[in-house]
């Protein structure tokens, strides 16, 4: 029995390590462990709740803006503040921008190389690549000369021995199915996406003042609207945002979606691999009538159990019996005992490390084996992320989502069940990007219309002063990070933070088993995954990457005797 250890090392959301047991060419069991302690909760206690966003924004290098959003919302929820319409629209614009940018970057720069063989691209015929590109899209960069020039640059790069970003792929692995021309086209778009993504994030700089840590504000947004003022959100800046949104729509519709469909067509077998859990949950986001009206959200809120798309359950972050965190297999201790679950308002962050001292070969998975707590919804393990959002919206009868899902399934000629898979997760990410980029344009148009009608307010001062606050109050701020449901819970006492708890998407997906022994999403999704060659476990990368862990990773491989074979790093 080979034990494969995937030990991603990162500081973005905490280090993550996966140990998988392989028998007869298939994964039979898997363990997911967060190996870096988090303690934001401790840093926040006693601080001014209005400052919390600036600290939690540092929780993740990629999702800075959604952590800040969750934070200002949780304070507003506690203090019963409703933000002005312009603030809601600008927050939605920031949210959509981040999701579109993050999903494109995930597809091309963190996931594509699991499906695209860079070295094979050197064998492509540029003229045939041009025909292929022109057959799937109107994107103008598609001439034979363009691909021929790129191929030459790629060849020089590969010949120099400086593979760099491409050094860690399993090039030539039989699991790569794309013809050389599709590979070359994908490499071209990998580089074009890199150029494009740095433009779209300027939307955050315009509304948030700076990037990568844009400013947020409890009660609204920290930018003023004045079409004539050089220092405010003026006509010039709004025009710039409009141009960036237009370019984003073009890139998503002419590059990302056609590539996704073309690549998915070669990997339909992955529509039956990597499904994992049968339960999905989305907190939803993009309010159109206030945060307290979830029925107005573009992304609906809800939970699905046992893949039953005929029933969607409501999710209530304030209900002490719904969302609870367990620590039976996590390096913490609770005052109520380690087998009990705690709602985040009563959450405790008391460390209790019982694991081995690094470096170590294998974790003791019978006991505590992770720094991640194990969140459960009504004691069910839930998958969160693009697939969960799309399924919840589909099951809620959202017409836009139903349309793109049905159209895509028909185009790929795969059944609805293919959604519950690695391919389904990757496809769902693309489909929601297509919708989100349209919504982004819609929110922008609404903002312009609002400003034209004379509404320029972006902030409400009511409740800014702590003397207007109750002595004690509680709030929850729920949102959707690109990689899934994210929420912050706060308890405010005498104007200061008394308790602050974050439950991040990676905690839902990457957590260890719960007290009942139920696996979480990563662990469950790997069970049954075929691994053709345990020295080159590209299959594990495909499934784990389909969740979009914001992690850089290292794979350790062990032979059946537990000896270390080699270590492969991947991003």
């Amino acid at each position, binding site marked *: 029995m080979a034990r494969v250890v995937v030990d991603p090392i990162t500081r973005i959301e905490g280090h993550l390590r996966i140990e998988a047991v392989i028998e007869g060419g298939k994964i039979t069991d898997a363990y997911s462990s967060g190996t870096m302690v988090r303690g934001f909760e401790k840093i926040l206690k006693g601080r001014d709740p209005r400052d919390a966003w600036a600290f939690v924004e540092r929780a993740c*290098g990629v999702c800075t803006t959604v952590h800040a959003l969750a934070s200002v919302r949780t304070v507003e929820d506690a203090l019963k503040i409703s933000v002005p319409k312009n603030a809601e629209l600008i927050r939605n614009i920031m949210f959509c921008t981040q999701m579109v940018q993050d999903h494109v970057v995930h597809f091309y720069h963190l996931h594509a190389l699991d499906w695209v063989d860079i070295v094979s691209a050197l064998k492509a015929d540029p003229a045939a690549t041009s025909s292929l590109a022109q057959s799937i899209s109107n994107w103008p960069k598609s001439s034979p000369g363009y691909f021929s020039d790129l191929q030459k640059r790629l060849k020089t790069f590969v010949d120099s021995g400086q593979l760099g970003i491409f050094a860690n792929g399993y090039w030539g692995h039989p699991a790569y199915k794309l013809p050389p021309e599709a590979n070359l086209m994908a490499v071209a778009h990998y*580089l074009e996406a890199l150029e494009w993504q740095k433009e779209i994030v300027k939307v955050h700089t315009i509304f948030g003042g700076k990037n*990568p840590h844009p400013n947020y504000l409890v009660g609204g947004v920290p930018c003023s609207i004045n079409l004539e003022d050089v220092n405010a959100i003026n006509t010039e800046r709004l025009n710039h945002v409009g141009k960036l949104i237009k370019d984003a729509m073009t890139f998503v519709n002419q590059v990302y979606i056609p590539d996704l469909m073309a690549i998915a067509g070669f990997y339909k077998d992955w529509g039956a691999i990597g499904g994992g859990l049968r339960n999905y949950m989305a907190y939803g986001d993009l309010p159109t009538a206030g945060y307290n009206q979830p029925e107005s959200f573009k992304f609906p809120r809800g939970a699905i159990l046992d893949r039953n798309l005929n029933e969607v359950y409501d999710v209530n972050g304030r209900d002490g019996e719904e969302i609870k965190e367990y620590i039976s297999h996590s390096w913490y201790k609770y005052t109520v005992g380690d087998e009990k679950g705690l709602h985040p308002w009563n959450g405790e962050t008391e460390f209790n490390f019982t694991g081995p001292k690094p470096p170590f070969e294998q974790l003791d998975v019978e006991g505590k084996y992770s720094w991640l707590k194990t969140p459960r919804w009504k004691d069910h393990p839930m998958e969160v992320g693009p697939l969960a959002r799309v399924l919840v919206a589909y099951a809620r009868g959202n017409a836009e989502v139903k349309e793109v899902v049905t159209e895509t399934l028909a185009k790929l000629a795969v059944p609805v069940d293919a959604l519950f898979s690695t391919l389904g997760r990757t496809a769902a990410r693309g489909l929601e990007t297509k919708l989100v980029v349209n919504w982004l344009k819609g929110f922008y148009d609404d903002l312009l219309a609002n400003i034209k009608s004379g509404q320029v307010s972006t902030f409400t001062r009511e409740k800014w002063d702590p003397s207007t606050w109750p002595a004690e109050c509680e709030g929850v701020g729920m949102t959707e990070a690109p990689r899934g449901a994210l929420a912050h819970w706060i308890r405010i006492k005498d104007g200061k933070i008394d308790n602050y708890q974050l439950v991040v998407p990676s905690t839902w997906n990457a957590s260890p088993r719960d007290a009942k022994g139920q696996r979480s999403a990563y662990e469950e999704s790997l069970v049954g995954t075929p691994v053709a060659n345990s020295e080159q476990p590209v299959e594990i990368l495909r499934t784990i990457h389909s969740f979009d862990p914001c992690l850089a990773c290292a794979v350790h491989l062990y032979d059946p005797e537990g000896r270390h074979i080699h270590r492969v790093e991947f991003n």
Partner: protein
Amino acid sequence: MSNTNQCDVLILGIGNMLMGDEGVGVHIIEKLSSIELPEGVECLDGGTGSFLLLEPMQRARRVVLIDATIDGQPPGTVTRLTPKYAKDYPRTLTAHDIGLKDLLDAFYLLGDPPEVTLYAVSIAPLQEMRIGVSPEVERSVGRIVELVLEDVGIGAPA
């Protein structure tokens, strides 16, 4: 509002300010931001911004990167490097984890990569969640600020 034009030198501090010495790069940017820098020299608190840092890095002719490294040397040791390719960076440079240096290679494929100077500050492997750096690393901060200022052609402040 940050500049969107080409800049000559970008001083980029990387790290997580909530992770003690790991945030030394950001800590140094805070110090530098109180000093008047000549036109064309910009400072940026990069946090752990990964892909979000490509845009500022691409519009710079030269990047002076400040990051923590776990290389076994005593905390506070400063090493100046001029890496060209991803493989030239210390393996345990914390920025490695976010794939940033790997993406620097993509600049070579895109053409016209910036010149990178790296100040790697040694830190201890285990960092607690805490704001601010340890006394060992704090002792080197003034020296690093001087080195960076000299590097970009400005004498150290009096």
